[in-house]
């Protein structure tokens, strides 16, 4: 009580001091965020933007211009790789949705309360294992001397070793596997919030399984579908390990092109331009997805 009175009856000077202290603590709290964002996100991206606008006109001679971006559109191989990355990423997103939706539905609506938690935890296992080990596992399964080839020969389905690695299908399978979780988690949590009575009402009104799925369940799950798809698409388009390890040297993934420009050819200007193109492209797709579904970025990210 005494202390409360002391807090309630401060002199005028101490009010000022108190306000100053609050402002000081606000500034102190704000510093880590400001330093982090400005030094590690904002300035590096500005620097990369400036670098990408530098044209090399001679040894150690540069000029401002769009040459690095123009080169991207004039050289078919570059935008072919970009288009290829986009198409495969889209395919991976759709496949992850098709494979993951029944799984989420089962976990959220069909499984009993005890198995539900266990199944959900089980789905999370790959999250705890690094991308590298997951890709390594797929290499051991798919390669010529790998497990699947061995099983095929053992059962007589194949007469000689089969190489299943280093093709687009292997890349797609590996990517779907890697990103699956980011589809299942938001889907399951959205479906979990759905009232079973809604489904029953659909059936009572004479709908069959397909109509109920199309008219009731999918519309309800839309926020989960959107956030899952956005995250999955971004992760896929920006991935490096899985396409390189499962697709081999010529998997032609856009991040690989960026790596080549930076590390192999030491052409940082064009690498920076390509990096920006990838960033624009993925942000554009995310923006479209958010606009079409009327959701906000923070709710989408927070959900996963």
């Amino acid at each position: 009580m005494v202390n409360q009175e002391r807090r309630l009856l401060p002199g005028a000077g101490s009010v000022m001091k108190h306000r100053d202290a609050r402002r000081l603590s606000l500034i102190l709290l704000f510093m880590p965020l400001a330093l982090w964002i400005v030094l590690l996100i904002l300035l590096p991206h500005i620097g990369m933007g400036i670098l990408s606008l530098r044209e090399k006109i001679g040894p150690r001679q540069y000029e401002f211009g769009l040459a690095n971006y123009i080169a991207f559109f004039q050289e078919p191989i570059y935008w072919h790789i970009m288009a290829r990355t986009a198409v495969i990423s889209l395919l991976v997103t759709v496949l992850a949705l098709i494979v993951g939706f029944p799984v989420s539905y089962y976990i959220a609506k069909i499984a009993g309360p005890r198995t539900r938690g266990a199944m959900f935890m089980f789905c999370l296992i790959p999250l705890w294992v690094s991308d590298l080990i997951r890709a390594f596992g797929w290499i051991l399964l798919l390669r010529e001397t790998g497990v699947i080839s061995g099983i095929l020969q053992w059962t007589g389905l194949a007469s000689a070793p089969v190489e299943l690695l280093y093709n687009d299908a292997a890349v797609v399978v590996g990517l779907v596997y890697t990103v699956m979780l980011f589809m299942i988690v938001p889907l399951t949590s959205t479906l979990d919030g759905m009232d079973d009575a809604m489904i029953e009402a659909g059936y009572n009104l004479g709908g069959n399984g397909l109509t109920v799925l199309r008219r009731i369940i999918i519309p309800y799950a839309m926020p989960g579908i959107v956030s899952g798809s956005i995250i999955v698409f971004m992760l896929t388009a920006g991935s490096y390990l899985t396409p390189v390890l499962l697709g081999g040297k010529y998997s032609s993934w856009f991040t690989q092109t960026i790596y080549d420009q930076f590390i192999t050819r030491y052409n940082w200007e064009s690498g920076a331009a390509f990096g920006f193109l990838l960033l624009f492209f993925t942000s554009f797709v995310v923006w479209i997805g958010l606009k079409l579904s009327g959701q906000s970025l923070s709710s989408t990210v927070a959900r996963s």
Partner: protein
Amino acid sequence: MARRSGNQAFLLGYRLYMAAFFIFLVAPLIAAGIFAFNDSVFPSLPWKGFTLDWFFGTSEPKLGMFHDRRLLQGLYYSFVIALSVSALSVFVGTCNAFLFVRSNLPAKNFFYIIMVLPLVIPGVILGISILVFASTIANTLDDSYGIDLDFLRPGIVLVVLGQFSFVATITSLVITARLRKFDETMEEAAYNLGASRARVLRSITLPYLRPAMIAAGIVAFLVSFENFNTTLFLVGSESPLTITMFDRMAKGGSTPVLNAVSFFLMMGSGVLAIISILVQRDRTAR
């Protein structure tokens, strides 16, 4: 119970699908782990008997992971990097939690979105932008003043900063979510009992946040340990484990020592996963 689809055949098919899905989920992990115990110099079938040589073997061709100097070095660097990233991100995450939940920061929503952004920037881009920025500063200082700042060249410091740049978002989200659920009357009670601000923070608010801070720290540690995309561009001569392993995998034809490392890492993450679940269970009990 939503067994509206009625017929048993459908449900059976559905169960089979779930079983197939779970096999799909674990198959690569089992393949990566199990060959660590195969007594053969190739990580492939046929099974030639059980061995622990890929962990403890002392000489070529069966050099085990605990005697492979480059792998051990990679493990050490990864550990140092992950610990630094985790400590930094938990600190910044905690500050951000207080900033977004407690302070009267103007334009809070705007800053919140800015804070979330690093998570949606592809890791490759974070890596190259930080590489470009650090190199520009280093070159400018070197050219104009002759000062050579070694930590701005690719190496451990840049790797830590690069990973921190997006891991901090994860820890901030986790700790902020926890602080939002805090019942502020607990603090008021402490003030009424005569406690100072520092005392309340130390003995009430921070203990309340501890489960979230530990969980966030574990996630940060794992994300850092496993990170590849951002690290790839910032790495110097001290390669962390993922880079060392990737180099060997990309070359192909490695011995099962990589499986031994994979098994070791999976066990490690398993232990961390269990710890973080226990810590969070503690949270629901309170």
